[in-house]
């Protein structure tokens, strides 16, 4: 073959350069030169032999993708592109995750300040963190929806049972990846979520020796500390992605091996014609499928970037504190159902039930062997699935803080207004509007709409937890209707909020609530002083603008 210099001599530099580039592109794409790519993009018919098949035969990346699909599965239904989008989310998480790894050390001494450093000192650090965290939640969602669709279209049936098995492993790994990352910021949210999770391990239905040793391994010592953080970090950045990568390839291999299942109504019952696609019903991967995948990828990227920038904000609470138990420990939404179940059944039962359920899901295709994939023939199965989804949603709701045991009413009011973590209508008041003084719930402060709004919420809360039309409130009616008519309410309470300047730039906000015991008027039934501080630079008001943190 002629060297580059020979070519330059022969046809001049420009021509030689073009020829070499063409050659390089052909090598990189494993078979398509520049004019092939352009013709594919224009939508021309391929030349013979079809160069668009060669990347599938000779290239690494495309050899795990089929070179053509059946026309019927190229539209949004039946795949909804969810399998591909799951793959994309994994890549997305890997890239943003590596960025975050650069600035993170898994040590309790420094992990939390690393998080603040990412937010306050790393250019685009907050965006990366938001994208990684939002991406993690979207990935769980996308993978779960992908599972739902393969169930609904009956794609788990013979011969694709093992595809389903590897898929289930991928689902578990996705959940574990998300959850193991949850611990890393080492704030109150992550610390206590993991602590609760670990306490589950302790009450598994197994001999105490086993439970205790599992717990010891998972928390890296007698209590969750440096050892535990390091272990969960390694799980998150090493073991889980590695396992996911391995099963990902098995899954893809099986998918290509069996071909994509056609929409259920397209085949004879019991037949599987995915691998026998007549020539006139084929859609080739290059360029059609590829274009559509790239389009969906671009749209999802746009959604993730815009979401992470404007609409959704990763939480960061106070530093993890083993001696301060938060009022409510919140599991991430994709595990909230387990907290809901704990309210329904004894712990040991729930902890034992979860792995049993998992195994049931994994082996399901080997027991559910009805021949037909058609919806009309699978009424029972589909109904069970819908019931299960409804049950999971209710469980999830039961696991949220809204469905929980109430603490004392004065604490409920105080923590609603000045929570230990997160934002609130009072914390959302811009610092310029935190005017010193003593205020009553529902008081209208002239020229200060923000404070007035905070005090209105204060009044609503007082009404809710006392069922009396609180003096000075303009509200009543509707709030009074859904007040907590139970033992947990304050008879005729008195409440104030005091704002004082403590230091330069530091305001003290105190909530005082008291109620006398009607049967013994010398005694206080409730008496609470709830002090809190607010620095002018803390910037809670900005947090209030995100959909997942509203004030």
């Amino acid at each position, binding site marked *: 073959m002629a060297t580059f210099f020979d070519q330059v001599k022969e046809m001049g530099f420009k021509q030689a350069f073009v020829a070499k580039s063409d050659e390089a592109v052909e090598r990189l794409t494993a078979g398509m030169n520049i004019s092939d790519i352009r013709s594919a*993009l224009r*939508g021309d018919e391929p030349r013979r032999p079809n160069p668009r098949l060669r990347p599938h035969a000779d290239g690494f990346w495309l050899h795990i993708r089929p070179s053509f699909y059946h026309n019927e599965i190229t539209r949004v239904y039946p795949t909804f592109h969810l399998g591909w989008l799951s793959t994309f989310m994994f890549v997305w998480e890997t890239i943003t995750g590596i960025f975050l790894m650069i600035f993170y050390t898994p040590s309790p*001494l420094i992990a*939390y*300040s690393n998080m*603040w450093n990412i*937010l*306050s*000192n790393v*250019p*685009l650090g*907050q*965006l990366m963190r938001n994208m990684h965290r939002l991406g993690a939640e979207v990935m769980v969602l996308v993978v779960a929806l992908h599972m739902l669709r393969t169930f609904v279209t009956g794609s788990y049936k013979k011969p694709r049972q093992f595809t389903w098995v590897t898929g289930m492993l991928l689902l578990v790994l996705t959940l574990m990846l998300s959850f193991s990352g949850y611990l890393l910021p080492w704030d109150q949210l992550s610390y206590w979520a993991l602590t609760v999770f670990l306490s589950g391990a302790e009450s598994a239905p197994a001999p105490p020796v086993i439970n205790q040793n599992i717990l010891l391994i998972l928390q890296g010592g007698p209590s969750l500390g440096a050892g535990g953080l390091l272990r969960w970090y390694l799980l998150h950045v090493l073991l889980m992605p590695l396992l996911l990568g391995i099963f990902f390839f098995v899954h893809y291999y099986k998918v290509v091996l069996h071909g994509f299942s056609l929409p259920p109504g397209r085949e004879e019952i019991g037949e599987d014609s995915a691998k026998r696609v007549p020539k006139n019903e084929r859609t080739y991967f290059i*360029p*059609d499928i590829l*274009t*559509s995948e*790239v*389009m969906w*990828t*671009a*749209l999802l*990227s*746009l959604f993730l*970037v*815009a979401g992470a*920038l404007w609409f959704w904000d990763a939480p960061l609470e*106070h*530093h993890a*504190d083993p001696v301060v138990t938060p009022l409510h420990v919140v599991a991430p939404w994709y595990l909230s159902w387990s907290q809901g179940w704990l309210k329904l059944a004894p712990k040991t039962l729930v902890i034992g039930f979860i792995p049993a359920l998992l195994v049931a899901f994994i082996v399901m295709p080997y027991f559910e062997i009805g021949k037909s994939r058609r919806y009309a023939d699978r009424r029972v199965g589909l109904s069970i699935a819908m019931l299960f989804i409804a049950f999971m949603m209710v469980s999830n709701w039961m696991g949220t803080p809204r469905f929980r045991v109430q603490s004392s009413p004065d604490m409920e009011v105080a923590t609603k207004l000045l929570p230990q973590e997160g934002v609130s209508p009072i914390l959302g008041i811009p610092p310029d509007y935190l005017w010193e003084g003593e205020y009553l719930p529902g008081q209208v402060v002239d020229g200060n709409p923000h404070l007035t709004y905070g005090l209105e919420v204060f009044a609503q809360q007082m009404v809710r937890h006392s069922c009396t039309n609180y003096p000075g409130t303009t509200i009543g009616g509707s709030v009074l209707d859904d007040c907590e008519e139970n033992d947990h309410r304050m008879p005729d309470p008195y409440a104030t909020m005091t704002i004082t300047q*403590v*230091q*330069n*730039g*530091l305001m*003290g906000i105190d909530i005082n609530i008291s109620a006398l015991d009607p049967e013994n008027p010398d005694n206080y039934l409730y008496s609470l002083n709830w*002090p*809190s*501080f*607010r*620095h*002018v*630079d*803390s*910037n809670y008001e*900005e947090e209030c603008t995100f959909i997942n943190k509203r004030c």
Partner: protein
Amino acid sequence: MQVKVAIGTIALMLTMVILGYSVLREPTRLEHFAAAELGRSIETGANLYNNNCANCHGVDGKSEECYDSASGELIGCQGLPLNYQPLLCGDATDRMIAMNWQGTKQAFIQSTIASGRPGTVMPTWSDQFGGPMRPDQIRNLANFVLNWESEELCSGPVITFDWAENVEDFLAAFPDGDGANGKALFVTYGCSGCHGVPDEGVAAAVGPDLSAIAETGATRVEGQTAEQYVYHSILLPNDFIAPECPNGPCAGPPSAMPANFSLRMATNPQDMSDILAYLFGN
């Protein structure tokens, strides 16, 4: 397919535009977050201070108003003032110079909190030295203390007073002690919280009874008159520990008596003269 190419290209370009926009706003955003981190650290520090430090250093850090953490009663402040010019003002503050501290102010405050002050009632706080607090908490506390530095605090003159060695020399400079005012000061300085009110028969609670101090004072330290002994003990309570307290032998050194009266009375040394007049009945 052409439509898909168009949609994909537009989405990609929009994403790039958004990323570009976020790069532009980055400098201001970073500044806001740096300020927010410090702000939130100060907030947390304020909570820690209230729960752990205010009972010795006072609610506003001036060592003037201290409440017992268990009973909530007003007690004498045992700690030095922190909301205090010589501690906080300037890069190398007076206090750092006096202690021969070469590092930064932040490190000075942080390491003092972390290790405590041996020989005084200031305990060790850091869990790295056996105390109860994590390093991040120490940092929050230091940020809170440093936030007392303000123009208002630092623009005024430093008030110190060069206390005379001998009570005679002092009284020569500040004669005419007013016993009645001294009695009032005895309460406002917090002395009565531990020593009771001698001339009203309110018994001492923690510190030695002072009703007969005019006689017993002369027996404490060889070569010191009663007046010299009381004067010296108010200024330097750790030098001599009295033998008898209401709950057995007095503890110390360090003495349970606050060591900050020499600072607190510096603004108005006549107070010392008045208190002596009250205790010695003239």
